[in-house]
């Protein structure tokens, strides 16, 4: 099957982000004073564990970023014809999870629907009962005998597979050196790599079991239209990561440039920039976002023809949300950078550079910018978790991502009214909160470690 790659706007920005990240990793690795704080991060146990969790989320998000149009058939000349449907590599890998839809709600690991329906019996009479699911536990008998044992068996076999993959990965990372491997697992290394390794172990077991289950059951049940909740939660990872990272990416150039310019040049430039961010800051963030998103909705409904597909439209809306969140969140960083630049411009080395006749632009780039980067990094790390949480809240008040985009906020929004049902439909909510909590907790812990490692002021206190 041939495919036709599709690059959405957010995809392109994610690739840009990856490129920038790779460049900075390469650059950092070549400079001892830059890699020193990262080594401090690696020495932290919490940092190790959080990093592994974040990496897992990032892998799912990246798999979900590689978009393409699948082939739908061939024309007369034998050339492939592509459907307009946009799929991602993750959709492709998840295969049955995406396509196996039930009729409506079903509980986690259930084999029957959640609500009673009239079922026609073979003899023509109808009975009101819970109908059997089409896919959930389909390999079991009609009454689902031996379900518990089957779940356990699959979990075990999945866990074993997960462990094998984890082990192979570790061997690869240790470059086939068994002594290095033993030291690592036992924790006899300078950095606590074993914490990261064992976190990976737990995740591998969990993921292996889920992988095995996912083919036969709806692990976290299905939602109102019968879509698998586990699949939705995984798809939402990309949205969460996009909001958390791209927002920072789009606001960073403006914040850095204006911040250090205000602090370095002072005078009327400082006044103008300060005026700019005070004005933006004085509008309560959520109201500004609401106003902007509202206006964008109208623009989009009035110019519906400008968009090729629904996916593209949803994607642009996501990007716009990142932009507007960026507009509301750059002011804090800008103020911090201004303060720091005010301090830096009086230091001897900047004064010396000035005395040598170095141009302003060169001073900014070579002397001021490198010395404020730790602030930028800390604030990126600290902002991330807040942005992920904000997405859910904004989606709930319907000024967030497009309703057709998978996101935790949309999942919560769709499921919260179902708490009034009897018995309660709890799985959608719990799945969204669980996935969000894990990501945000890992991000919070990691950002704390990063802050401790990079902030020289905190280091002195120890």
């Amino acid at each position, binding site marked *: 099957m041939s495919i036709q790659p599709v690059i959405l706007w957010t995809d392109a920005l994610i690739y840009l982000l990856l490129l920038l990240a790779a460049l900075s990793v390469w650059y950092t690795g070549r400079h001892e004073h830059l890699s020193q704080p990262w080594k401090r991060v690696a020495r932290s146990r919490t940092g190790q564990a959080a990093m592994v969790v974040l990496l897992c989320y990032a892998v799912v998000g990246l798999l979900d970023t590689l978009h393409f149009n699948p082939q739908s058939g061939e024309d007369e000349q034998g050339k492939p014809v592509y459907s307009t449907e946009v799929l991602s590599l993750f959709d492709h890998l998840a295969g049955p999870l995406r396509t196996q839809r039930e009729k409506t709600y079903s509980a986690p690991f259930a084999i029957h629907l959640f609500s009673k329906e009239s079922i026609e019996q073979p003899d023509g009479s109808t009975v009101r009962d819970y109908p059997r699911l089409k896919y959930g536990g389909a390999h079991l008998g009609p009454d689902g005998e031996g379900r518990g044992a089957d779940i356990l068996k699959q979990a075990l076999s999945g866990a074993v597979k997960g462990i094998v993959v984890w082990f192979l990965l570790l061997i690869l990372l240790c470059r086939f050196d068994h002594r290095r491997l033993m030291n690592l697992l036992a924790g006899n290394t300078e950095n606590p790599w074993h914490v990261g390794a064992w976190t990976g172990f737990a995740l591998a077991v969990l993921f292996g079991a889920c992988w095995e289950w996912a083919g036969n059951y709806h692990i976290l049940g299905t939602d109102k239209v019968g879509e698998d909740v586990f699949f939705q939660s995984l798809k939402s990872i990309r949205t969460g990561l996009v909001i958390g990272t791209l927002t920072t990416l789009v606001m960073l150039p403006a914040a850095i440039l204006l911040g250090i310019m205000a602090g370095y040049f002072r005078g009327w430039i400082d006044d103008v920039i300060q005026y700019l961010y005070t004005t933006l800051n004085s509008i309560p963030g*959520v*109201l500004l976002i609401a106003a902007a998103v509202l206006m964008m909705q109208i623009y989009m409904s009035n110019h519906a023809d400008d968009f090729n597909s629904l996916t593209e439209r949803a994607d642009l809306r996501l990007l716009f949300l990142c932009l507007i969140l960026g507009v509301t969140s750059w002011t804090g960083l800008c103020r911090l950078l201004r303060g720091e630049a005010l301090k830096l411009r009086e230091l001897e080395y900047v004064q010396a550079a000035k005395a040598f006749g170095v141009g302003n632009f060169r001073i900014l780039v070579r002397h001021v910018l490198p010395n404020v980067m730790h602030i930028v990094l800390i604030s990126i790390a600290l902002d991330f978790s807040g942005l992920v949480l904000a997405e859910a809240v904004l989606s709930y008040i319907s000024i967030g991502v497009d309703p057709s985009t998978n996101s935790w906020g949309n999942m919560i929004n769709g499921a919260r009214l179902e708490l009034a049902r009897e018995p309660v439909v709890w799985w959608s909510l719990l799945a969204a909160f669980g996935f969000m909590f894990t990501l945000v907790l890992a991000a919070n812990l990691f950002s704390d470690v990063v802050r401790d490692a990079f902030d020289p002021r905190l280091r002195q206190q120890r």
Partner: protein
Amino acid sequence: MTAYIIRRLLYALPILIGVNALTFVLFFVVNSPDDMARMHLGNKRVTEAAIQNWKAEHGYEKPLLINREAEGAAVFTETILFEKSRRLFLLDFGQSDSGRDIGHDISQRMWPSLAIAIPTLLVGLAVNITFALLLAFFRATYLDFWGVVICVAMMSISGLFYIIGGQYLVGKLLNLVPISGYDTGIHAWKFMILPVIVGVIGGIGAGTRWYRTLFLEEIHRDYVRSARAKGLSEHWVLFRHVFRNALIPILTGVVVVLPLLFIGSLLTESFFGIPGLGSYTIDAIGSQDFAIVRAMVFLGAVLYIVGLLLTDISYTIADPRVRLD
């Protein structure tokens, strides 16, 4: 002092003009009044006459920036920009797109917002400071460590979870208080308890951790060490010296949000069905009522600026080293 306040208020003027310009661009330039009329009247097959009619009804019939038909100064004054801005600066919010008086609505809906926001703030402050002092007192012990761990975990839980969980647990399972709604007068307490509890619990994580940092920053100061060296007991040091000095940043952090309490919390109010300004805004967003959203944006900016002014003044009161002139 008076001169300082007057000067600060004059500084606020350009900022408000900036906010006004921004909202103008957002609400009138990105989408022209014609677009808005078309949307309100239903997108398809709207006659030109119907659009003009809708615009005239809502006061959008004038040109946006420059009125070419008018004479003299009226070229600029007989426009939407001037007309709408003039009214906003006089805090005359005019009519909403559905024809209600916004100013009246705001004055009515302010009180439920305050009834929820003030207790949440006060109780939250008391709880957070108590926990933070406790953690600071037992600093560098297991209690402190696990306290911080719990704080980080609580910070990582979505605010929506606290609200939905609280409603489910207290309102539905335990059946103690109504899940949502509001009542006038003294009977409102039933409806207030749950939002306040949820608001306080939701804020514990971030608040306690932040105040703990503030306390710990003070605890390492020289004057604290000399107080201990004089032989003062630990709790005396903590309450007389550390607590009082750490109160300065806490106080100023609180003062800046005081005016914004009027606006209330969008999320809490819409979940608990409280007829305050937060749910007013949410409803306006839902029904795409631009006049209300615009008024709330402006009001929010005004209140924020008032908050900044109050912060500066509260510095002089709390910290005698700071003088305004």
